[in-house]
């Protein structure tokens, strides 16, 4: 048995050596202008874009009256300038396809009661039907905290998480490879175009919220409770095609986990008067107009509920 363990240890050391050496070569050797590694898998992200800009701009030492978190619904739908117009400092830490698994590590490594007066957590059924791979690929290359990156890469329970971290740790970029021009600061990215067409009927695809994402959503709630961060959960306006059974399942789930707590779920999905054609730039993301109207309504509600103090 002792010899077997010795052989396994030798094998492990050889694997580690070959793995690190190969990774190093693939990250450092460019092919047609791009490091070789980006030609070996579709989950390696170049550092840059909204997420890089957002996390490098966010200053955890500052006091924010409100921090918004969630998927692209969050960073495109919650306009910090509307908060500012009401006298509140807000920052948007939402990112593409961010799932509760990813949000958990963002909260854990960036937020506490001293820098966050209120956490606005946007939930969307799509982000609960997602493994978190896409967001982990994005955030492991773009967040400033190694701890957050390691946390979500490990929680992914997928060997791709290890490769993403190897890329991060070996490449250690100091500048982004690219930036997004629709990023306007404070974590917010805006599109001015309108989709211009009527929404279709709601999808009839069966809905199954991933158990692991439900677990992390509950863990996020618990983490906020432990850290004394006031929390509201929200869903922003939706076009009529997004108001089907999928959202019903989410709404019921939110009811089930929030019953008995004081955390409100502010669900604006079915708000009367939503303009399907003019408030969205695609099938489910708010454009500048929609975001401004929605954020105004949200801030009014938060002020009336006492979550944000009226100036």
């Amino acid at each position, binding site marked *: *048995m002792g*010899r*077997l363990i010795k*052989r396994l240890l*030798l*094998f492990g050391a*050889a*694997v580690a*050596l*070959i*793995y690190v050496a*190969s*990774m190093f070569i*693939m990250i450092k050797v460019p092919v047609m202008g791009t490091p070789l590694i*980006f*030609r*070996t*898998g*579709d989950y*390696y992200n170049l550092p840059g874009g909204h997420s890089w800009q957002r996390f490098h701009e966010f200053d955890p030492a500052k006091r924010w009256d409100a921090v918004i978190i969630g998927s692209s619904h969050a960073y495109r739908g919650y306009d910090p300038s509307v908060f500012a117009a009401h006298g509140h400092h807000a920052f948007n830490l939402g990112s593409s396809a961010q799932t509760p698994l990813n949000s958990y590590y963002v909260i854990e490594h960036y937020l506490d009661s001293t820098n966050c007066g209120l956490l606005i957590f946007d939930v969307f059924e799509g982000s609960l039907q997602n*493994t978190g*791979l896409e967001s982990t690929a994005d955030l492991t290359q773009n967040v400033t905290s190694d701890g957050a990156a390691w946390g979500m890469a490990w929680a992914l*329970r*997928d*060997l*791709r998480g*290890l*490769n993403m971290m190897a890329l991060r740790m070996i490449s250690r970029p100091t500048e982004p490879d690219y930036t997004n021009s629709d990023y306007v600061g404070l974590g917010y990215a805006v599109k001015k175009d309108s989709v211009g067409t009527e929404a279709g009927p709601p999808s009839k695809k069966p809905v199954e919220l991933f158990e692991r994402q439900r677990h992390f959503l509950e863990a996020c709630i618990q983490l906020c409770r432990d850290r004394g961060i006031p929390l509201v959960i929200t869903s922003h306006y939706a076009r009529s095609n997004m108001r089907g059974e999928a959202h019903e399942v989410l709404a019921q789930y939110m009811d089930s986990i929030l019953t008995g707590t004081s955390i409100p779920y502010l669900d604006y999905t079915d708000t009367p008067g939503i303009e399907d054609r003019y408030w969205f730039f695609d099938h489910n993301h708010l454009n500048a107009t929609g975001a401004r109207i929605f954020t105004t309504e949200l801030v009014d509600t938060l002020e009336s509920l006492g979550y944000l103090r009226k100036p």
Partner: protein
Amino acid sequence: MLFNSFQFLCIFFPLVTTLYFVVPHRWRWAVLLGASCWFYMAFVPVYILILAFTIGVDYIAGIWIERNEGRKRKLLLTVSIVANLSVLAFFKYFNFLNESIAVLVRSLGFNYGVPDLGIILPIGLSFHIFQSLSYTIEVYRKHQKAEHRLGIFALYVMFYPQLVAGPIERPGNLLNQINSTEPGKGIRSFFDQERVVAGLQQMLWGFFKKVVIADRCAVVVDQVYNDPSQYGALSIALASYLFAVQIYCDFSGYTDIALGAARIMGFKLMVNFRTPYRSANISEFWSRWHISLSSWFRDYLYIPLGGNRVVKWRWYYNLMIVFLVSGLWHGADWTYVIWGGLHGTYLILAIVFAPLTVRFSGLLGLERRPKLKRALNVFITIQLVSFAWIFFRANSIHDAGMLVHRLFDTPLAIGDLVRLYNDVPRSMLDTTLALVGLFILIDPIYDAWIKQERPIPTGIRGVALFAALFSGILLFGYFGSTSFIYFQF
């Protein structure tokens, strides 16, 4: 539970293997049976009842067949076969038959209102039904004693490494190892470090084939086969060759993991593949591809039909029947039947034209150059097999027709490949082609090491060769996909 899942690799396999070696030998069967139930129930738990039914029927049938003689014996075998095939027919073929009848009836202008069954096909059903059937047939033929302990028989049918995708074992091999009383053999194996290492190496090779080669090929293959109208001859040809690689790596990868896991515990399962794409003709291909199934059909269908010891037309008929049934065994769709039919046709044509091909190769001077002749034959066999795979992989008869039509009827345009290159994420296509090239070079070497036909280099070189495989999985594995193709059968 998938072999390439976190649950299997990090929980099930280490736990079951450790328990197996820790408990006294007399309780090992219970550990393995419990583990096999857990493994199977990870898919659709209630389907364990189907297995329980076939196990119950064949267990009783085996004992009664052994106790009786004459016609009663035959009757009991018939009951076992009918019960097993009824389960298969109900779960696997009902919808296929129903849809085929509906098409026929509607084409005659009548209404047809029998709905399909809304059920999921139990995983690996065809495999364990065939394994169970081989037991009752062997008992009937008096080649095997009936098993009187239900738990042992259940373990024979349910042995987790080969439960859902084979190899389709025979009682003479697996049941006898489960029943072994000889210390150090089968279920009474000791913990042997060299065997454990060899088993782990075989599993590693299986994972490499599955995760690095098969799952990467699948990305390109799916792109073309799920939308064949968008692609021309070059893309279809490339995707079809890649599917030939994919299915080999997927299935033989599964088999290596199964054989490796069993080997660690001291069981020797049947070899299922012997580098089949090195075959010089279709007959040789079938002696190297899915050997446990082809030998099952040979022993229990082809030979009882008369095999080749009959008049020529009957021989051809026997061959065609075996391959059509083999096609249908794979899946309840006409695409599989055509795939089987093609292989049957290849074999019959090879027999019919054998004198002509000998004369032709003589004219070309190939008889004096056996290596060149073999290389040419291997090349032709790969073309025939790859062409047949088109029907196996196509999503429908309509798609298969379109793929074949476009393969032969669209111009060879480089723009077609450029389109595929752009449709598949770039890193997938170049890396996949590079890895497939590498695999073709290393497959015969690792295969010979794994099957112990050639000694594995010792010392640091041996460690490095398998560490490179493991690192290859980490670096180039396409994770987060996919079941094994043969699970659906």
